[in-house]
C-alpha cells in the first residue's frame, strides 16, 4: 500500500511539482480562510484576543443564522429572482457571446474587427455606479432620452423607475451589454485554435458557411462551452450586486423584480451587521452552487468524459 503510493508518487513527480505552487496558493488563500466559515453557526462577538479566539468562544447558535434567508415570502422571491436571472444570463450570455465570436472571426477586414473588439471591452471598465448614471440618463422621467423620444412620437411619458414590468428586460440587456464583449474573447480564441485544415476540407466538399459553423465550429467549441457553463452554474446563487442595486437606483417599487440574494442580505444586515448571518448567506450560496456543479458534472461525465470539469 505504502509502496504503491510511493511508486505512483514517483511516476507523477514532475506533474506534482507543476501543481505545487498553485496548490500552496490555494491552501493559503482559499482553504485556510475557510475555517472562518464556522462563523455561520456563531453569534460572533469581538474579544481582545483576536479573531480566532473570538470565533471559537462566541456563542453557538446552530442554524439560527440561516433562518433569515427562508423566514418570509420575500426571502423566497429573492431566491427565485436570483435563479431566474442567472439562468437567463447563462443561456443568453452563451448564445450571444458565441455568436459574436463567430461573427468577429468571419469579418474580412481584420483591422476593423480588432477595432470593434477593443470597443466592446469598454463597458467592462465602467463601474456599476457609472453604468447606473447612464441608465438614468436614458430612463429618467423628465430628462431621460427615452421619454423625450416617447414624447416626440406623441406617447405618454413612462415612470421607468416605478414600473417593475420592464425591469427584467432592462437588467438582462444591461448585463449582456456589459459582459459579452469580454466573454466572447474566450470563444474567439478557441475558434482561432481550430485546425484550419478542417475548414479547407469542408470547402472542398462544398459545405456552406452555415454548415461549416454547425458541423465544425460549434462541435469544436463544445468543450469550452461546457466548461464555461459548468463554471457559471456554480455561481448561480450569486448575483451581481452592482447590477441589481445601482442600475435600478435602489428603487423600492421595483424590488419584486430586482431584489436578489445579495441585495437582500446587504439591506437586511445594514442595521444589525451580524458577521454570522452574512457568513451563513455566503455558505448557503456556496453549498447550493457546489451541489449543482457536482450534479451537472456527473451528468456531463456520463455523456462525454473529456469535457467534464473533474
Amino acid at each position, binding site marked *: 500500500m505504502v509502496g504503491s503510493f510511493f511508486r505512483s508518487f514517483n511516476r507523477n513527480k514532475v506533474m506534482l511539482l507543476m501543481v505545487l505552487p498553485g496548490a500552496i496558493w490555494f*491552501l493559503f488563500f482559499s482553504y485556510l480562510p475557510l475555517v472562518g466559515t464556522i462563523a455561520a453557526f456563531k453569534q460572533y462577538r469581538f474579544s481582545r484576543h483576536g479573531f480566532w479566539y473570538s470565533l471559537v468562544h462566541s456563542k453557538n447558535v446552530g442554524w439560527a443564522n440561516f433562518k433569515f434567508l427562508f*423566514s*418570509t415570502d*420575500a426571502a423566497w422571491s429573492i431566491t427565485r429572482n436570483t435563479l431566474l436571472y442567472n439562468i437567463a444570463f447563462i443561456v443568453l450570455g452563451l448564445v450571444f457571446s458565441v455568436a459574436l465570436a463567430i461573427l468577429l472571426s468571419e469579418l474580412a477586414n481584420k483591422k476593423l474587427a480588432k477595432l470593434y473588439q477593443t470597443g466592446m471591452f469598454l463597458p467592462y471598465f465602467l463601474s456599476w455606479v457609472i453604468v447606473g448614471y447612464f441608465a438614468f440618463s436614458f430612463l429618467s422621467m*423628465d430628462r431621460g432620452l427615452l421619454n423625450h423620444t416617447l414624447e416626440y412620437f406623441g406617447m405618454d411619458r413612462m415612470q421607468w423607475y*416605478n414600473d417593475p414590468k420592464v425591469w427584467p428586460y432592462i437588467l438582462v440587456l444591461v448585463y449582456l451589454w456589459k459582459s459579452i464583449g469580454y466573454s466572447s474573447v474566450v470563444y474567439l480564441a478557441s475558434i482561432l485554435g481550430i485546425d484550419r485544415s478542417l475548414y479547407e476540407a469542408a470547402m472542398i466538399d462544398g459545405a456552406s458557411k452555415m454548415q461549416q459553423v454547425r458541423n465544425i465550429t460549434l462541435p469544436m467549441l463544445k468543450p469550452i462551452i461546457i466548461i464555461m457553463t459548468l463554471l457559471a452554474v456554480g455561481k448561480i446563487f450569486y448575483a451581481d450586486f452592482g447590477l441589481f442595486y445601482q442600475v435600478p437606483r435602489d428603487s*423600492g417599487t421595483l*424590488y419584486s423584480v430586482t431584489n436578489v440574494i445579495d441585495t437582500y442580505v446587504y*439591506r437586511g444586515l445594514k442595521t*444589525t451587521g451580524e458577521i454570522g448571518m452574512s457568513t451563513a448567506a455566503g455558505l448557503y450560496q456556496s453549498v447550493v452552487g457546489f451541489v449543482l456543479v457536482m450534479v451537472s458534472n456527473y451528468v456531463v461525465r456520463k455523456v462525454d468524459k473529456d469535457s467534464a470539469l473533474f
Partner: protein
Amino acid sequence: MSKMTKKTGLTAAAAVTALSLALSACGGNEAKSDGASSEKPVELIWYTIGTPQKDVDTVMAEVSKYTQEKINATIKMKMIDWGDYTQKMQVLVASGEPMDIMFTSAGGFDYVQNARKGAFLELDELLDKYGQGIKDTIDPGFLSGSKVDGHNYGIPANKELPQLEVWRFNQNLVDKYKLETTGVRTLDSLAPLLKTIKAQDPSITPFAMDKNYVPYVPYDYLVTNMPMAVKLDGTDLKVVDILETDEMKQALNTMHKYYQAGYVAPEAATTGSTQDLMTSGKWLLDRAQTQPLAETSWSASNGYPITSTPASDAVITNTSVQGSIMAISANSEHPEKAMEFLNLLNTDPVLRNMVDSGIEGTHYEKIDDKHMKNLDASQNYNMPSYSLGNNMLLYLNENDPDDKWEQFKKFNAEGKPSPILGFNFDSTKVSTEMTAIQNVKEQFWASLMTGTVDPATYLPKAIEQFKAAGLDKVIAEAQTQLDAWVAANKTK
C-alpha cells in the same frame, strides 16, 4: 486509485487544521510586558474617519512632542476614507489589528452595535480615574445620552447636542416672489408657498428632497428610519409602528398631495442627493437639520442666501448624541494612556487645535487670540472637525462671530431630552425579523415618504408586509426592553 485520492484529501484536511491552529496562535498576541518602562513613551494608534491627508504624519510628529511632554504618549493617526470606514473598521477590529482609539458614530462604524459586540472598552472606571476634565467640560447630556446598557463606551464630541429640524428657503426666490415665510412651521403650512412658486415658475422644483426624506412627526425612532417609534411627549412610553400613527398618516397624505401637484421632483424616491438643485439654485425650500450659524455656512457653500425657520422642537435624541464619538479599543494595550489622551484632547485648546488645523505658521496662523486663518498648506491637512473631539475649544474662523461657542451652548441648553434618550434597543433576539423588516422598509419607505405613491393603497400594503416580516414581535421585544429600562432608570 480512489482510495488514494481519499487519503490525499485527508492529509490536506489535516494540514489545514494544523495551519489554522498555528494561525490562531499567531492571532492572540499576548500583551507586551509594560513594566519598568515608565520613561519610555507609549505609542497610541488612533483610527479616524476622513480622506487621508498628506501632512498627517508631520502634524502627528508635532502633536506627539506635545503629548509626550504632557502625558508621556506619542500619537500615530491612521485615516480611513469616508466610504471605506465602516467596512474597513469591521475587518480591522474583527481581525484584532492593534489599535487604541477609534472614531465611531451612528453613521459610520455604528457605536451601539459595536459596543454591544465588544469592540470597545467599557470606560466607566477609566472616566472616573483619568477623565475628570471631560466630565467637567462636555455637556453632561452627551455622556448620559451615549450610555449603552448603562455604561459609557466612548467620549462624544462636544458640539451641537439637540436635533432641530428646519425648513430652509432659497431666499432669492422668497424675495423675488414676495413670499411670506414667518407663519411656516407644519408641513401643511407650506402649501401656499409651494403653490405660488409652481404657478410663477414651473422650472423650479418647489420642494427639494432626496430619497432619505421623512416627514417630521413628533416621535423618536428606536433605530434610525425603522418603523418602531415612541411618541416624544408621551408619558406612557409605548413603542408603536410609526406608519399606524395618525400624525404619519396625515403627513403622508399631504406629501402625496404635494407630489401630485408637482411640488416634488418626480424621481425624488430614487434621488441620492439634491446637490444639483443646490448648485443651480432651482429650488424653493427643503428640510434640514440645523445648528447655530448654519444659515451662514449654507449660504457660503452654495453662493446665495439661504434662510430657515424651525419645523420642530429641539430634541436631544440618541442619534443626535451619537453623531461623533471616540472610543477606546477593546484590545488596546494602553487603555489608561488612551483615556489620558482623550481627556487632554477634550480639554486642552493647544492640542485640540493642533489636531484640527495642523501646525501654527505652516497650516494656519492666528489673527487674534480667538480667530485664525488657514494658510495655503492647509490643503494638505484638511481635517473634519466634528470627528476629532471637543469642538468648543477650536479657534474661530475669520468670519465667525466672537460668541460662536456661546451660541452653541445656548442652543444645547434649549434642547429637550427625548423620553427614550439613553435607551438603545438590542435587536439580537430578533435579528432574523430585523433583516426582513429592513428589506420591507427599503421597499416601501422612500416612495411613501416622498409622496410618490398613494398612501390610500400603499400604506395598508406596507403595514401588512411589515407585520408579515415580524414587526409585531420586534415591537413586543422592544417594549419589554423599554419597560425594563424605565424601571431601572426612571425611578424619580
